[in-house]
């Protein structure tokens, strides 16, 4: 086995899109750009960012209601946010816009009342 050492890979047809072809007969491909997480965030207190990527601010909209705004917009409203929380027992998201991810932390899966907590999310999809 040989080792490829490089600092950068660049697509030929599209600069930011690289496809890995694998498997017999080149039947399996992986588009690297499609699989990357485009934004992530961890908030230690209500809407206070501890660390993140591609987030410009987080708004505390009330108990268990956190709104993150992106620095690099997504291409459409069909991006896919997923997340979790430490103290709340469940969480959910409003339909994203291309720049805003609205996360709700919920106290119990049966009552669905909002609750504050340490919050996490990450976002996949296509960038603008």
């Amino acid at each position, binding site marked *: 086995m040989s080792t490829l050492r490089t600092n950068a890979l660049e697509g030929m047809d599209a600069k930011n899109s690289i496809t890995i072809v694998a498997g017999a007969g080149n039947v399996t491909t992986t588009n690297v750009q499609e699989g990357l997480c485009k934004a992530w965030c961890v908030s230690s207190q209500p809407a206070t960012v501890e660390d993140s990527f591609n987030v*410009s*601010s987080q*708004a505390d909209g009330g108990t268990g209601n956190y709104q993150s705004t992106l620095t690099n917009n997504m291409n459409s409203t069909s991006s896919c946010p997923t997340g979790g929380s430490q103290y709340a027992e469940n969480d959910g998201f409003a339909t994203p816009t291309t720049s805003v991810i609205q996360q709700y932390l919920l106290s119990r899966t049966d009552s669905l009342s909002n609750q504050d907590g340490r919050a996490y999310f990450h976002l996949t999809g296509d960038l*603008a």
Partner: protein
Amino acid sequence: MKTPEFQGTHLWDRLGWAKENLEQYRSEYCVVWEDPDNLDECAKITHPDPNWMACALNGGILPPVWVYWELKKDEAKPDFKKHTRGYLLHNTEPVKAMTEEEAIEYLIQKDIPETVWRDYEQANRKRLFVVKKEQLPSHRTWRNAWKIDQQVA
């Protein structure tokens, strides 16, 4: 730190450079605001992201704020499906280094609805304040009832 020449580089790649090379900057300020289109809602508090603040203070990374306004206009169109002018984020000349005050002003215009900050000084109800985080209530009891005190000068 000196920023590479980033005009034409994808914004997301610039953020990767910033994450690797810049120290987070935790602002002591936040923005308290009320949405005039949703008067029954409680006051909201926008906190700048420490990595974004580092980009703003360093300069040469973020696009001018009008780029975000253009994308918002596109998204507000009824037939919007996908952004077709994302290149504005990547190809427009990045803004130079900002002071902390300028960065907060930029963030207000980028991340808070225009109906909140446009002509807010002429409004008959106070709806926007930049405050130190230590000025916020120390506990979150009745958080959903927080409103801006209209008696504050």
